[in-house]
């Protein structure tokens, strides 16, 4: 929370009541493209030199990685001391802040600075490879893939510059800031936000690529386009692309070839680096190049000699590619020019399905995507404008949503089950793929439903626990966990004043709750989409009350006052007018107390509702009986004439006979006596 404390003439942000961050004192030397570094201070240990990295809004930090890295002390890693969300005055909202031990020797490599002294063999081994190997070993032991190993994210730990530490890896999605030249080919082919969490082999490659740059004192791929670098790597291998003809220390060539091996399965692992450091020399890996065709495949004016290059060409000419592949041209090229009859048969199967399809446009896109997968199984999933690794959807989607990206195409790719198609083109079985396929099937179910609490928003939060709630109501906040939700809504209600109106649970918040709640909320989430306004409002209150009760959070007076205002339609679920009046008088008081649970109990008590229902049913029966009787009376007005006539005549007859009888009797008595 920003407090009144001042240092250097500016406001101070306090993180977890311990660390002071000074927004007016940035540190460009330690900043990253998506996270600015600022001066910070540890109030408990003032002599400890720390700095803060503040993540830019709209970029999800890797929360599980932060949890795992906090407190990890390793000679090759920048020490993460603390992390958390705090108000950030320069942005006027909350931001993710990470406190790191400050590396005292500055950045290892800065592209903008000339006269960089390149690493020699001894420096490379002692100052870089050894601490980096230790860091990678530790990362592997805790299950973290760094995905941000590059020269510009390496820092000298000491003023003497005797040890390099790997910089922050949690402030951005995996490999988001990595230059394509330093990434393995398959990762470089994906758009930066969709490179995915990757595997440990990715870190090994990046270490090798960084080492190549530092040994040469320049990045020879820097002047080429990403496409050019990738093509070079594909044709001649990564070692050639990154080291060229440079004369590198012979001992390190073995390491570089091992780390820069383009086949991830053959690439060195951290244990191999350990062995290498301990003096065990291995045979350098010989690069294996992709098979070239005996004749090229023409596509949109270009000639392609390998299947992988052709896949890139198809992706770059998405709209016009399919007609050029038809009439069995691609199959024939695969079987004759590349002598790969199995792939040719697979492509024929995919193309055959396209011909018989009803919705040609939709199937065409899926067909192109599948052809790309068959041509280059290691490449990302490509679909229209999107190129994303199978584990990159979870990062690409939030980045696209938060930054108004092409969300529709990503959703289409998921809806059309491209991840499943990707799994089907794998050449070997992997248990990880089965788990992922099951996950994607679940996400497709959410997409199919589309109601509030499902849809793309649900997929967003289900796939990635690092994504903060992107509801427009919570944009100024940073709600990553369910326990942050009610305070954030309370703050929103406070900011909006007496009656913010609208709804307290929009599509994003509903999906966020459904994805993050560890207790059963499915029925309530379903009821949120009830067409009955009073029912849905009541469900909203019950849902928030359940969260408050489960998490034991109190003092939500602004939120409960807002809910009390929104609850007015819910009062109408009671039939008894007297009860309604009583509730209307009671609501404001409960609202001020900040107790949503009490509010829910007041409005949705099963006993009260039952009594009201029974009373209403009884009243309905009474009303109906009265109505029937009244109707019988009115209907009887037409028959009453006949009845009155008959009765009148009967009475007249009776009077007449009685008169005769009385007259006769009196006369007889008169004569007798």
């Amino acid at each position: 929370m920003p407090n009144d404390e001042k240092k250097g003439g500016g406001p101070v942000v306090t993180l977890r009541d311990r660390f002071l961050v000074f927004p007016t004192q940035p540190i460009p030397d330690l900043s990253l493209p998506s996270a600015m570094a600022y001066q910070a201070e540890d109030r408990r240990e003032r002599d400890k030199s720390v700095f803060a990295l503040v993540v830019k809004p709209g970029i999800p930090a890797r929360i599980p990685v932060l949890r795992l890295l906090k407190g990890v002390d390793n000679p090759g890693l920048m020490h993460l001391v603390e992390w958390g969300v705090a108000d950030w005055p320069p942005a006027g909202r909350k931001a993710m802040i990470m406190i790191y031990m400050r590396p005292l020797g500055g950045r290892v490599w800065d592209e903008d600075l000339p006269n960089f002294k390149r690493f020699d063999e001894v420096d490379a081994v002692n100052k870089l490879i050894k601490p980096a190997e230790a860091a990678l070993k530790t990362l592997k032991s805790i299950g973290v893939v760094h995905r941000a190993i590059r020269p510009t994210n390496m820092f000298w730990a000491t003023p003497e510059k005797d040890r390099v530490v790997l910089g922050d890896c949690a402030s951005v999605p995996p490999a988001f800031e990595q230059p394509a030249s330093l990434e393995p080919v398959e990762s470089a082919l994906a758009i930066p936000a969709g490179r995915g969490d990757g595997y440990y082999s990715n870190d090994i490659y990046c270490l090798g690529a960084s080492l190549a740059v530092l040994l040469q004192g320049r990045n020879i791929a820097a002047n080429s386009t990403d496409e050019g670098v990738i093509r070079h790597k594909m044709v001649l291998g990564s070692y050639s692309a990154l080291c060229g003809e440079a004369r590198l220390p012979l001992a390190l060539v073995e390491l570089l070839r091992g780390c820069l091996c383009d086949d991830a399965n053959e690439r060195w692992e951290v244990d191999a680096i350990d062995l290498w450091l301990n003096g065990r020399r291995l045979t350098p890996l010989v690069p294996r190049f992709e098979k070239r065709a005996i004749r090229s495949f023409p596509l949109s004016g270009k000639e392609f000699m390998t299947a992988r290059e052709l896949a890139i060409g198809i992706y770059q000419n998405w709209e016009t590619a399919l007609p050029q592949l038809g009439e069995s041209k691609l199959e024939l090229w695969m079987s004759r020019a590349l002598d790969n009859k199995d792939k040719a048969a697979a492509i024929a199967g995919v193309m055959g399905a396209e011909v018989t399809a009803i919705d040609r446009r939709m199937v065409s896109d899926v067909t192109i995507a599948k052809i790309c997968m068959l041509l280059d199984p290691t490449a990302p999933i490509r679909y229209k404008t999107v190129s994303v690794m199978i584990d990159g959807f979870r990062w690409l989607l939030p980045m696209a949503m938060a930054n108004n990206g092409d969300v529709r195409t990503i959703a289409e790719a998921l809806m059309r089950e491209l991840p499943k198609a990707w799994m089907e083109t794998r050449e070997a079985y992997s248990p990880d793929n089965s788990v992922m396929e099951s996950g994607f099937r679940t996400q497709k179910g959410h997409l199919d439903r589309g109601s509030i609490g499902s849809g793309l928003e649900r997929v967003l939060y289900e796939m990635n626990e690092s994504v903060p709630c992107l509801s427009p109501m919570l944009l100024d906040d940073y709600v990553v966990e369910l326990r942050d939700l009610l305070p954030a809504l309370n703050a929103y209600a406070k900011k909006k004043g007496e009656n913010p109106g609208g709804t307290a649970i929009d599509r994003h918040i509903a999906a966020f709750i459904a994805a993050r709640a560890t207790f059963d909320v499915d029925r309530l989430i379903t009821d949120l989409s009830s067409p009955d306004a009073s029912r849905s409002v009541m469900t909203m209150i019950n849902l928030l009350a359940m969260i408050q009760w489960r998490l034991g959070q109190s003092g939500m007076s602004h939120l409960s006052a807002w809910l009390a205002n929104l609850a007015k339609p819910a009062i109408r679920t009671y039939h008894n007018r007297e009860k309604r009046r009583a509730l209307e008088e009671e609501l404001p008081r409960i609202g001020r107390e900040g107790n949503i649970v009490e509010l829910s109990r007041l409005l949705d008590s099963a006993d009260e509702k039952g009594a009201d229902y029974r009373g209403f049913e009884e009243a309905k029966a009474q009303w109906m009986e009265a109505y029937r009787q009244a109707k019988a009376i009115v209907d009887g007005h037409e028959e009453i004439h006949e009845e009155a006539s008959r009765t009148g005549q009967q009475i007249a007859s009776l009077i007449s006979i009685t008169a005769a009888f009385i007259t006769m009797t009196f006369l007889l008595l008169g004569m007798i006596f």
Partner: protein
Amino acid sequence: MDFANPMGGGARKVSSTRMIMMLTMISLIPFSIPTLILLFAGMLPSLVAALTDRSHARYAWICVGGMNFAGLAQPLLTLWFGHHEVSYAIHQVTNIGNMLMAYSAAAAGWLLYFTAPPIVMTVMLATSKRRAAALKSQMDKLEEEWGKEVASRRQMEEEAAAAGEIDL
């Protein structure tokens, strides 16, 4: 035994009883000629009423007859307890006062017959309106306490469709 008409014996029995009664009455006629003369002449309005009354219940001739008989009671008793002779009966018949009394009474019978039904109808209407008002008041109170929804619109519509709309 007549299996085709098991009631056949009963019908013959009724016919024979009626026959016996008619014979008995015919045998008594010579002894009641004066009474019959007086009754015939004095009860002519009742005879007319009996012949003209086409209603199912035939209350008109009962009503007229009763009053007519009451008006003729005095001369009839005088005949029975005085001189039960034909000449005296004719004397009574020709007495203007006796006949005027009998016929006036018959007229009163008609009057009674025609005025009683409207009076009864007025009373019945007043009673039913008061009952309907009480029911309407009860319905209004229920609606005030439970809202308009308490009037089960669907049931009302079903009933209205079955029996035509009503206006309370």
